[in-house]
């Protein structure tokens, strides 16, 4: 185990070091410490209110740390302008805004372009590829307001891809979308794996976490366990994380909660 830890440290691209975070006086994450190696794909699993979304908001800079450190490539959070991309549960945007699918995906390039440069040939090419990869090419010139929920989710995934991030955070990408969008999201994970992108995905689907991910972070305000699914997703540990809300049927864990409630979200007030 020590050797494994050492190996992780050498390769670690994302280090969470004794992190505390929350809203106002309400502490949600307590003393989180774990490291994700280069290109690791992590399923973040835990009950509602465990702090999955909070963890992502902290990682992307939407919520300040109360205590602790986060290092990306050994540098503190914020030192890199555009290496973390974030796909929220459902984009909290004005769906009637006059932007097309292509416009939204192009926004993923803005971080690299800077304020004044216009998108070039290469940017248009990357945007077209990302749109194609998520299967929304036919909708490229449609206003986003005219898309279905699953299609909108794909557009936001395409935008995150266009950011060419080193670390991609996806909050419940498999929840409340159609089967084909789920499939597209899973294929995307495989593609990102090939490209060596580090991915954190929150999900409450324990079976998907066990089957499709090499690492699982079992979270309930604190790290309950972190490591390969076979080590982490044991009945005892799942019970610790989920309390009475989990059933074991023929060895498969079933969680007794379907849809995460709307997370408290103080961010994004327009003024």
């Amino acid at each position: 185990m020590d050797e494994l830890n050492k190996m992780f440290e050498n390769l670690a691209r994302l280090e969470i070091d004794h992190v505390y975070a929350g809203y106002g006086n309400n502490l949600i994450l307590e003393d989180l410490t774990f490291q994700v190696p280069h290109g690791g794909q992590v399923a973040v699993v835990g009950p509602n209110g465990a702090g999955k979304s909070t963890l992502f908001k902290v990682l992307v800079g939407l919520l300040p740390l109360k205590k602790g450190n986060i290092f990306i490539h050994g540098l503190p959070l914020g030192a890199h302008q555009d290496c973390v991309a974030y796909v929220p549960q459902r984009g909290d945007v004005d769906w009637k805004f006059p932007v097309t699918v292509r416009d939204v995906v192009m926004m993923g390039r803005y971080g690299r372009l800077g304020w004044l440069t216009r998108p070039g040939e290469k940017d248009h090419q990357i945007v077209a590829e990302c749109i194609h990869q998520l299967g929304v090419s036919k909708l490229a010139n449609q206003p986003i307001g005219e898309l279905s929920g699953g299609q909108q989710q794909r557009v936001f995934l395409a935008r995150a891809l266009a950011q060419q991030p080193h670390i991609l955070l996806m909050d419940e990408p498999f929840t409340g979308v159609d089967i084909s969008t789920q499939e597209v999201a899973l294929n995307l994970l495989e593609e990102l794996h090939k490209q060596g992108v580090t991915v954190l995905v929150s999900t409450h689907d324990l079976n998907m976490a066990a089957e499709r991910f090499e690492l699982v972070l079992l979270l309930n305000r604190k790290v309950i366990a972190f490591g390969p699914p076979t080590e982490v997703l044991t009945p005892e540990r799942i019970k610790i994380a989920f309390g009475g809300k989990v059933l074991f049927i023929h060895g498969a864990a079933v969680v007794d909660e379907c849809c995460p409630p709307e997370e408290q979200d103080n961010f994004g007030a327009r003024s």
Partner: protein
Amino acid sequence: MIDLLLSPLSYAFMQRGMAAAILVGILCSVVGCYVVLRSMAFLGDAVAHAILPGVAIAYLLDGNLTVGALLAAILVGLGIGFLTRQGNVKEDTAIGILFTAALALGVALISTIRTYAVDLSHILFGNILGVSSGDLWLTIGLSVIVLGSVILLFKPLLIISFDPVLAATLRLPIGLLNNLLMILLAFTIVIALQTVGIGLVAAMLVTPPATAYLLTRRMAPMMFFSALIGIFSSVVGLYLSFYYNIASGAAIVLTATFLFVLAFLFAPGRGVISQKAHKSRVLRG
């Protein structure tokens, strides 16, 4: 016909008025796109009313009325932003408190002045034919600043307006950009006061962009069409004002409103009639 259009322009005051009207039409319509998309119409109206104390103080100190208006507009706009950010007052409440306070202060100051009637009525209702060449140069200068900023900062302003979460992950200075937009709005409102006056500024900020929104599907074309509608309304309104002796601001706003009604009814895809036709086609299968 051509004579009908050209003869008013033989007067120098009419030439200056036309130039100012066109600039105001462009500026309000472009900045107004953000006002419409970010639901800032109440804010725009409030800032327009809140300039009154600035004008009154400038008048009392024998200073430049436009500069007084500009300072008041910026102060009130930033004040509203500051109050809202403290988190215990909602934005529309903050607007309601600050703008009525500023308006009351303006009325209080003006009531102490005996001979205010002529000059200040221009601020209230606009007086496009009284635009001096100094006013026109100021208008040109501020227009260049505002339009230049909107063009140069198109991308960051688009992101903070459409998706504040992405803006934060890209580490854009959101507060700074919001304040900048506020200042651009203040500039625009003060320029627009010359042509349409306090009461009708909000119409110029809202009506042409709302019309353009019905006709376009992307941000840049929306701004372009909005500007065309703003220019058209200003020019037509000014001619109506000249020949039928109507107050210029009212004529301009009514022209813009007429165009909005046309778009609301007939816009392809988004207009009421086109949507009705679409529904009945769907029903008939």
